[in-house]
């Protein structure tokens, strides 16, 4: 309603870019979900959306590992995104339980449990709330192995948090904090793009010998539906996926943004006859420099897109590495299309997001450079 008014204002300004944005405003999501073309493992599959896949992964984790615990705010009744539905009934309140409202306490407590060998899977209700736990993650979890000379670790810690824009989250239900944590050696960070990745990555995090943070894009919980393998499987952390092969521009993103980029690749083909290669980074820490650099050396032009603000966003790290390793191959400066350097806005969200039109515009600039 209010958004329609914004676009009317924009139309009056008679700007081409802003006119394109008008089409966007009437849609509910700024992306169109594209399921994975093939399953990573053979065998029986079942149709699940992302929260069901996560639920399934948690179930597997609790089943296969007696020391596994799932806890966080409101997880007992199923959680605000239904990721933990049925788990307390199945495994009992001794293994699946609610914590008080204290993120710092939750993560600290999880670190302690992990220290003692329990597979601690802590949920932070929204990634926007993770900041009280920042000290615990950065100063305790990430450094424990290092500071104790390898004697102690909390590798069995996994922290799950819903992140990213959801259309109406405003300042405190839309943030993407991956960049803050990427700056912390000792942690591992992954961002799934759909149900199959979510299940595989979550199980990988749970079984990984280092503390992991999995940021689940909340916009995909219901929107992303795929045929997910029924079996227990893990997907590699630290390995990027090339979703679409192309020759002229490399598009890099993670989470929800991957789906925006897939649509952009299609638009680039139809509008500029440009073939784009789309890479889902999957893992923020450690990130797959080889796959990225290999692709950039081939295409010579690269666009990185993420919802988080521009300055200090993870795109900056990727861009810096690309120019270090692929300098002589580049035909154009590395482009970044990101959220603006403002707090995540309330009414202005459609303008803020790195949507397909802004990305397409950047591709045109890359091609014309």
């Amino acid at each position, binding site marked *: *309603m*209010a958004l329609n*008014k*914004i676009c009317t*204002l*924009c139309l009056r300004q008679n*700007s081409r*870019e802003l006119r394109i944005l008008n089409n966007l405003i009437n849609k509910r999501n700024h992306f169109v979900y594209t399921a994975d073309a093939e399953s990573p493992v053979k065998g029986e599959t079942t149709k699940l959306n992302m929260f069901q896949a996560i639920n399934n992964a948690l179930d597997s984790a609790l089943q296969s590992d007696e020391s596994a615990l799932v806890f966080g*705010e*409101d997880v*007992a*009744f*199923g959680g*605000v995104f239904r990721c933990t539905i049925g788990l307390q009934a199945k495994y009992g309140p001794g293994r699946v339980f*609610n*914590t*008080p*409202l*204290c993120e*710092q*306490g939750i993560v600290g407590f999880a670190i302690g449990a992990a220290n003692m060998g329990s597979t601690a899977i802590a949920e932070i*209700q929204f990634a*926007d*709330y993770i*900041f*009280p736990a920042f000290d615990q993650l950065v100063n305790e979890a990430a450094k424990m192995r290092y500071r104790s000379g390898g004697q102690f670790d909390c590798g069995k810690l996994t922290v799950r948090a819903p992140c990213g824009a959801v*259309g*109406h*989250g*405003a*300042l*405190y*239900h839309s943030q993407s904090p991956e960049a803050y944590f990427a700056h912390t050696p000792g942690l591992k960070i992954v961002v799934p793009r759909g149900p199959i990745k979510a299940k595989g990555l979550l199980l990988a995090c749970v079984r990984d010998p280092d503390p992991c943070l999995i940021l689940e894009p909340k916009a995909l919980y219901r929107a992303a539906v795929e045929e997910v393998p029924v079996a227990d499987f893990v997907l590699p952390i630290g390995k990027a996926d090339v979703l679409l092969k192309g020759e002229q521009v490399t598009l890099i993103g993670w989470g929800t943004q991957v789906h925006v980029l897939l649509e952009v690749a299609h638009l680039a083909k139809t509008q500029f006859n440009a073939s784009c290669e789309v890479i889902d980074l999957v893992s923020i820490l450690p990130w797959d420099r080889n796959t990225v650099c290999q692709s950039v050396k081939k295409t010579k032009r690269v666009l990185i897109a993420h919802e988080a*603000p*521009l*300055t200090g966003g993870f795109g900056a790290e990727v861009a810096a590495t690309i120019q270090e390793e692929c300098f002589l191959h580049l035909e154009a400066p590395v482009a*970044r299309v*990101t*959220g*603006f*350097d*403002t*707090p995540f*806005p*309330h*009414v*202005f969200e459609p*303008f*803020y997001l790195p949507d397909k039109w*802004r990305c397409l*515009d950047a591709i045109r600039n890359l091609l014309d450079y």
Partner: protein
Amino acid sequence: MDNGWVKPGAIIIVSFMVTFKLCVSTEMSAFKLLASFLPKLPFRPFASEATFKTQPYVLYRLEGPPAPAVTLNRADALRFFEEMVTIHQMEATLNHLYKSKTVRGFCHLYSGQEAVAVGTFAALRPQDTTITTYRCHGWGFLYYQSVDPIIAELVGVRSGCVRGKGGSMHIYGKHKDFYGGSAIVGSHVPVGVGIALAHKYRNTDAVSLICYGDGATNNGNVLEAYNMAKLWELPCFFLCENNIYGMGTKLERTTKNTNVFAKGDFIPGIRVDGMDVLSVREAARFAIEHIRAGKGPIIVEAQSYRYFGHSLSDPGTTYRTYDEIKEVRTTRDPITTFNKKILEAGLATEEELAAIEKKVKASVRESATKAEADHPVDVEELTHDIYANEVISEVRGINKVWKHKSSGRAWNLK
């Protein structure tokens, strides 16, 4: 004696005796008895003031409870009723607007808790300040004395109190000493303590009212705030709006000590029935008096209930039963119980109260229509007010010429 006086005299004596007898048997005053025979007029208050018993208080580290009985005058009775009904109507309207997607974002409604805000606000003085959580529409209305800026803010239009840039959780009113709603649970409580420090330094006899819920009482922020407030004897009025559910988890499953009013360690506390506006007002008066007398911070736990879920994305029934909600609505609703009280005491008539309700409904509806007809601020404001001054000219990432501008409203520059 003239014969002509016998008949009238006899009639007068008989009337008196009948009236007396009737008064005795019906236990009504003569005036009321007489009035009850008159046809019902639209405006016919019986009393200008009445006394009510307050609900029992529970104390911690305190001597002498707040008054067990309070007087309420007619003007206040009508005002409290109107304020509570307005909050109730506003929240109901926002619920509809949310369902029709006019209001977007996250919306946390105050229905059921009206008595806490109205009662406490009645005890606040002009120099006092308030800071609260995201469940702030009711407080916002009380500060603005109008639903217009609140509804407009939620709809996201420029007539909103924060020009549509804050939304439901960030209702602010600097000029009104309302330090806003806050999204992150517990994060505003130490901020409220800082505000209290300013009051103490400036010697303004002001109190910093800090509202938060039961879920927040287990948060590090709040425990740290308690300690600082008591260590430095700051004028903090900690008001816990205990609606017994922290999102989806009942209080007793989150804490060992469910006596929220006693969790401040050295800070004294009172537990009050938050569904009774008069008890809340008394407890608030008591709390403010305590602080003014230099005795330092105090915690008031107002036991209340919310009818809606935690937010409008939460149905509110996955962790509690319909029966429970219905039970509270029928037996403890703050508005219906207050309504009954003042009618019985003769402070108002049913017609008056019905007229107030009707007026409020119409005015809230009008507010909503006005808000829907308005439009949001210009998109250039996306990049305004990030910093106090124009220390950066352009905001990175923006591919047009949206500059950073200071709206000039930064009060910390004045």
